[in-house]
């Protein structure tokens, strides 16, 4: 492939396409991954990330993480830091599922204590955390109240008895993005989201019970600092976003930007999905304020789901969630644009960092980290396929090369349409059960599309991030129970 010949090897895990590769590129594109991952990477990634490199205000590099794969506009795994004065904001650099993210929760239970209750736990979680197409949540609020919720974020949940004070501290932005303005939200977005609080969604969204086996603890001290302290400890990880609300916010502004982008601001793009507006423009500011509402909705969604998870464990074990040690490790967002300060050519610069399918990975000592993690760095939660495993990692000082960003998952290698021809949902469920993973799903074909074989090897992906110095592995987590959307 011509593009692979054009790639320049910067190190064993960093590969560059120079700005001369494509007309209009303002900066080089850098793709992270081992030689194997680079060889196997979806060719569309190279096309998409070099399109990103043409966006006004992009600083240093257009980056793609080792889990990169075919996206729309940006590739999944794409990171772009825009100069806040000269640069743009692009919904395609964030994704329709604004603030899709991961949350990890500990228990003080061991695998042996959980295994005889596993089916009951998964069945109850399946019942109480609605999943799949068209699912609605148990929280009944008016559309007017929903506008308040998306401005207040997870703080609203605490006031309504759905969380602990410490949960907020352990959520990015303390569960509330300042500056969320619901007057920038369409009625359609409200209609699509106001009854979906506490729902998982579908596709690759899931809720999983996992085990931290002794042999999979890669850094004992850091694992302890993150609350993984006993052998074969059981944890709960889940992945979901801002649901129909966020999807509509992104759709609305994509159309607004398409109308003004070229005629008003003279911005030319190579793909309509990269529709953008200057960050410092009325349209850009409106989207930023609306996007923050969607970020908050997602924090609320994950907080309410946490409340349900605690209730289920408490019911099944007849002990309070506090007594079961059900503390959050952290909540990370992997579809966002955030205003951050980073060192660029020895100068601190204000940047709008777009991360689409990429996780913020702040290193030790960085501001905005909760007090308890300031010394060690940010916990990073990377979900793998439902068959293989997931990882807890930590941010490192080497993250400065990627604006402190790392991978978000294992990354797909096969289309859903192809996967459903190879695997069958019911058969896969039986096979997984034989291997000790009990799955409930809202959709059999949906389950087949999520088969482990449709994904890259998660071990390769996280190792690449460690070798590149952008994050460090702490614990590998093995799935034992899964609720699939």
């Amino acid at each position: 492939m011509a593009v692979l010949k054009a790639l320049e090897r910067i190190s064993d895990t960093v590969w560059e396409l120079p700005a001369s590769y494509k007309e209009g590129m303002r900066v080089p594109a850098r793709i992270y991954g081992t030689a194997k991952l680079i060889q196997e990477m979806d060719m569309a990634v190279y096309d998409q990330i070099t399109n990103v490199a043409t966006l006004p205000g992009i600083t240093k590099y257009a980056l793609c993480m080792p889990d990169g794969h075919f996206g729309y506009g940006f590739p999944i795994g794409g990171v772009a830091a825009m100069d806040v004065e000269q640069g743009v904001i692009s919904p395609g650099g964030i994704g329709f599922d604004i603030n899709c993210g991961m949350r990890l929760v500990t228990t003080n239970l061991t695998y042996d204590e959980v295994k005889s209750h596993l089916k009951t736990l998964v069945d109850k979680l399946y019942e109480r955390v609605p999943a799949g197409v068209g699912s609605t949540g148990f929280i009944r609020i008016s559309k007017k109240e929903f506008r308040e919720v998306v401005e207040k974020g997870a703080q609203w949940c605490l006031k309504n008895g759905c969380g602990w004070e410490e949960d907020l501290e352990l959520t990015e932005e303390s569960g509330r993005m300042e500056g969320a303005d619901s007057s920038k939200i369409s009625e359609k977005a409200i209609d699509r989201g106001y009854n979906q609080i506490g729902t998982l969604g579908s596709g690759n969204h899931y809720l999983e019970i996992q085990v931290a086996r002794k042999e999979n603890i890669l850094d004992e001290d850091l694992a302890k600092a993150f609350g993984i302290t006993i052998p074969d400890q059981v944890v709960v990880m889940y992945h979901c976003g801002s649901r129909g609300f966020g999807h509509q916010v992104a759709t609305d502004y994509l159309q607004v930007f398409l109308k003004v982008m070229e005629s008003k601001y003279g911005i030319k793009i190579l793909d309509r999905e990269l529709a953008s507006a200057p960050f410092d423009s009325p349209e850009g500011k409106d989207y930023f304020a609306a996007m923050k509402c969607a970020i908050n909705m997602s924090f609320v969604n994950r907080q309410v789901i946490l409340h349900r998870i605690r209730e289920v464990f408490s019911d099944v074990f007849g002990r309070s969630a506090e007594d079961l040690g059900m503390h959050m490790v952290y909540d990370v967002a992997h579809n966002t644009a955030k205003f951050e300060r980073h060192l660029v050519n020895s100068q601190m610069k204000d940047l709008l960092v777009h991360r689409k399918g990429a996780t913020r990975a702040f290193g030790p000592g960085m501001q905005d980290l909760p007090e308890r993690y300031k010394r060690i760095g940010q916990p990073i939660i990377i979900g793998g396929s439902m068959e293989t495993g997931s990882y807890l990692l930590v941010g490192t000082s080497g993250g400065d090369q990627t604006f402190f960003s790392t991978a978000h998952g294992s990354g797909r290698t096969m289309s859903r349409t192809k996967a459903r021809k190879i695997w069958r949902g019911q058969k896969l469920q039986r096979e997984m059960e034989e291997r000790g993973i009990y799955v409930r799903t809202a959709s059999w074909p949906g389950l087949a599309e999520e088969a482990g074989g449709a994904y890259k090897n998660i071990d390769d992906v996280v190792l690449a991030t460690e070798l590149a110095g952008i994050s460090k592995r702490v614990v590998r987590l093995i799935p034992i129970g899964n609720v699939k959307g």
Partner: protein
Amino acid sequence: MPYEFLEDIATADIAFSAWGKDLEETFIAASDATMNVMVENLDSIQPLERREIQLQNEALDMLLFDLLQELIYYKDSEKLMLRIHQIQIKKEEHQYVLKAVALGEKLDPNRHPTRADVKAVTLHRFQLVKTDRGWETQIILDI
């Protein structure tokens, strides 16, 4: 079935192409393809509720984008799974005007086995082109 899901485009999302002898048929085919991503068997959707859809756009392809977004909107806001039964597309001065009647019913997972939720219609490689036989579109849906 005047549409097919594509294996080699998009990995985490779902791409399809849809076609028809005229714009109306093509728009109906693309609507069914979108709904078929969510509901496995479209024949299981009974025409119990009716929604009238009226849209206008200067660009013909964006008119199709708007129509598919309407279907996604009803799926979330009212849990309605709709199919387009009548449709008319006209050029009026500087814009295209679409009038359609959509029929369907509320999603019942017991009767409507589902596949994956469609979050949005993406504009990545979005195409609506005239061919020798009529019209054809290629679309990637965000899953």
